[in-house]
């Protein structure tokens, strides 16, 4: 079976800063061999007296390997599910379902890729970094975060060589009016073969307006994560038509140009 339920062992689980936590799992199957950058797993966040999440939580993969049974996640401790997950200790068991979804496209023939990340969106794109580095494809990254303490540049690059442009809310450098000329300059000067983004609708809209060739990893509330329940649909432009696509199995990675505007909830 291509998609399985795996009882994994927690090898490492620690804070990387005040809000983000790193999780490394040993899986009972060689999942690193079949997991692609941009794919995700459904995590059964453990029920405790304090937190009782019912549904699994979709979480994109932050690290794949190098051992064939190792999978890593990097996540923002924010809601009930991640607060429950946060309580796992080394040696505990975590049930995961996957790998799920369609990952990023990549070609070793490319010269340079541009990664534009906001917040924890950087975790979703992180598996692209070793992929590009191994293939000798140049990496340029625009990393947007609340503050330097939140940036996680080392966690993103893991010593891979890259041209990094960090921007912050704390000094105003992440404002769209300042990011836009930066992105324009990088597109013009570096001519990236592919642009990837995750974590910000504003950055997505900016890249759409520049008509870049690129891909975005999207989020949507989901239940089954396999295309069955139809809860995670979003609207896309395809061949002149507007069509619903399931983020879980037809994504979560989509062409940047295809994403249509959202109807705001509330």
């Amino acid at each position: 079976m291509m998609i399985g339920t795996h009882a994994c062992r927690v090898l490492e689980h620690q804070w990387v800063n005040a809000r983000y936590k790193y999780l490394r799992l040993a899986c009972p199957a060689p999942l690193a061999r079949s997991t692609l950058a941009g794919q995700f797993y459904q995590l059964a966040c453990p029920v405790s007296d304090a937190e009782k999440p019912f549904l699994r939580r979709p979480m994109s993969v932050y690290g794949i390997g190098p051992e064939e049974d190792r999978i890593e996640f990097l996540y923002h401790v924010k809601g009930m599910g991640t607060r429950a997950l946060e309580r796992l200790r080394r040696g505990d068991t975590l049930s995961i379902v996957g790998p799920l979804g369609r990952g990023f496209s990549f070609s070793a023939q490319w010269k340079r890729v541009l990664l534009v990340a906001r917040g924890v969106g950087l975790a979703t794109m992180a598996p692209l970094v070793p992929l590009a580095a191994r293939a000798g494809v140049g990496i340029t990254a625009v990393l947007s975060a609340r503050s330097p303490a939140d940036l996680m540049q080392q966690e993103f690059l893991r010593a891979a060589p890259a041209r990094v442009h960090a921007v912050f809310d704390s000094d105003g450098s992440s404002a769209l009016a300042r990011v836009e000329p930066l992105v324009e300059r990088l597109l013009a000067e570096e001519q990236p073969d592919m642009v990837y983004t995750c974590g910000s609708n504003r950055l997505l809209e900016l890249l759409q307006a520049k008509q870049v060739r690129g891909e975005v990893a999207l989020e949507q509330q989901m239940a089954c994560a396999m295309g069955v329940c139809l809860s995670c649909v979003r609207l896309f432009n395809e061949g002149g038509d507007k069509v619903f696509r399931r983020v879980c199995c037809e994504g979560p990675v989509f062409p940047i140009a295809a994403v249509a505007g959202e109807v705001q909830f509330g």
Partner: protein
Amino acid sequence: MAEQSVNLGVRIGSLILKNPVMPASGCFAHEYAQAMDLGRLGALVTKSVTPKRRIGNPVPRVAETDAGMLNSIGIPSNGLLYYVDHIVPHYAGVPAPLVASVSADTAEEFAAACEALSLPGIAAIEANISCPNIEADGRAFAMSARDTHRAIAAIKRCARVPIWAKLTPNVADIAEIARAAEDAGADALVVANTLLGMAIDPHTRKPKLGNVMGGLSGPAIRPVIVRMVFQCARAVRIPVIGCGGIMSAEDAVEHLLAGATAVQVGTASFLDPAAMIGIIDGLVAYCERHGVARIAELTGAVRIDAGLTDRWLRLAQQSG
């Protein structure tokens, strides 16, 4: 596999199933073939198809609750032709009977749709006369005995395959609805669907579902549905298929003991895509442990002490 030692076969009218476990409509699609052998299931029940194309409800379409979830998907459907041409072929080689769930706006549309789907390859039709999302304010055919009778009778006049009536739990007297469906000719009942519910985020003051209200499913509703299976099974002679909050083999046995002949599994598959396989294996283990040779023996086998209340009252009279 140890399945030879226990006979898991059940009969739903003219249809014989190799085991009593099948998916609940709306919670199953061919994508699950990536996670399990669909041929091991007792039957396959597809998502409701409607005569007209429907786009479904606004997102968010699901919300987590205590021990369950709310959904208001809104039955997105590409219509009958798409169903026949693009959905049915997925199951052509699968050795399990295909049950088409159908939903429609009027009794006449129901009848026409069920006639159109009376095709080779479709073993039965489940008439979804209950989904709380389709009618204004959550109302549906199966909220009234008269509307239930009218819809099922119209369907039975036109359909050439067995008809299962899927009832809603959002009623005061489910046995009355069950009898109306039986009187109209239903071949089996599916008891039941989701319970109409609502959840609000206290911080944003917004409903958690785009459609405001939605159907509650999961273990939270199991005691309510087991009670309804019990009431329906006592009220009718046709088979009852239990559907509500089954997460494990023990939960399935609970439905069988209450009077169900087979069971449907929905929400559990969202947590583990191969949950139904685990439940089938668990039923074999249960039967072996309890010396049950045929699983059909469990239907309605709840041990109720009929004289308990009388003895209790007699004893109570002796007290001060």
